């Protein structure tokens, strides 16, 4: 007898967010480094 698949998967709520950059000064060398430094400045 063939098995029947019953699948259900909850989807994430789509909350499109943008973090607020609060840092001001900038002395980092490259963009990637800068973003990371700002995150934990």
């Amino acid at each position, binding site marked *: 007898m063939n098995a029947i698949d019953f699948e259900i998967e*909850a989807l994430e709520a789509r909350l*499109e967010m*943008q*973090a607020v950059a609060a840092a*001001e000064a*900038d002395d980092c060398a490259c963009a990637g480094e800068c973003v990371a430094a700002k995150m934990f400045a």
Partner: protein
Amino acid sequence: MTDSVLLLSPPAVPVPRLRDEIRISPFHDEQDKQRYLLESGGTCFVVNESMRDLVLSLQEGPATLDDLSTRFRRRTGKEVSPETLSTLLETRLPRHLFAGNAEPAPRTPFTVSFQLLRSAWLQPLTSRLAWLFNPWIVVPVLAAFVLVEFQVLPQAMAAMGQTLVSYDVLGLFFGILAVGLIHELGHATACARYGCPHGGVGFGLYLAFPAFYADVTKAWRLPARQRAVVDLGGLYFQCILMIPLGLMAVEHQILLLLHVIWLLNLMMLMTLNPVFKMDGYWLLSDLSGLRNLHQRMEETLVGAVWKLRGKQVAPSMQQTVTGARRKILYAYTGLALVYYLYLLPLLFRAIVGVVLLYPARAYDSLAIVGGFLRSGETTQALFAVGHFIHISIWPVLLGVFLMRFVSKLVRGLVARIGEGIRCLVRGLCTCEQAPSNQAAVPASQVEESRSSSVSGG
């Protein structure tokens, strides 16, 4: 399962009634198998054809399990026994899909969040701005943005060396708030462009970062490419904003404006980071077809740990991802892991910095406030209070993030220890046995992801 319906004793017990507002439509994920989107209030699910047929059969309002079995057979030509249907209703369909059960509060990635602008307030605006997403408008706008950016960005970066005065700092904060709201308006407007309803716009604390958000959950109804436009809608609106701001800044050399433009660029870059759940995350998810990307990443990591321990892992959700998508998933998981490891020392440095420097800075700042108050200089005292708030924002955010992280860690450890103690007490130490599919997936995800294979007849 905590959210299952009451156990049914087939065939005499009546079948629970589904909620009236359940909506089923094709789900566009460009996979071989046809999937369907099932919406119930603010919650969305992806279901396969059999589950869709079961839900449609339930929507017909069968009185008993026998009746449900007959309706399912009539619809699909497949035989499923009332006993199997009873098990399915009990264990697979979330309780809140049935009438009389409250819908759970939506799970958000925020520590705290609140809505700023309701959907009903935004709709008149978004429907009027939808023309901005016409390709004949988009192309010249983006070309103008590139030209302006080329002119203004070097000047904005140079201006960051100059310090703003107190009033300007206040203007900078309001400028950032306005930019954030316009970004979220862009997401909502992109939804309106495709005739898809959108939710409200709000503000929350994500990890240690304050963040604006737009609720565009209904965008799951759209094809992947249109979802990608929704993902980029926020950045597009910021590009539009950049054109007049950039021209003004270049023309008049306004320091505050140059600072706002630099931060605007930083925010635009940060939001494309796919590791955190910002625009880049959704863009990658939609373009690759890997939905629930963070969840799949966690499963990949858990599966890898089990394999390293020599345990056999039954197929879980991420293992149903095949071909190029699996490669993307593995690459994403690896890169995300490297990125987390990169951030770890920065986080440590930030914590040390706050612990060592903040108490003295806060003490000095409060002493200045006290000095101004004693000498009756109220305006200066207010500025000093503003400075104190300014230097306290980051330590507070970091503190909240760490408290939440430690709390989750402790709860996880307590659960594991409790499980171990229960094993010892019962003398059934099954903890070291190879995990089953469900055991390999964190409990929080079992609630969300369910797939069953049942024998017909």
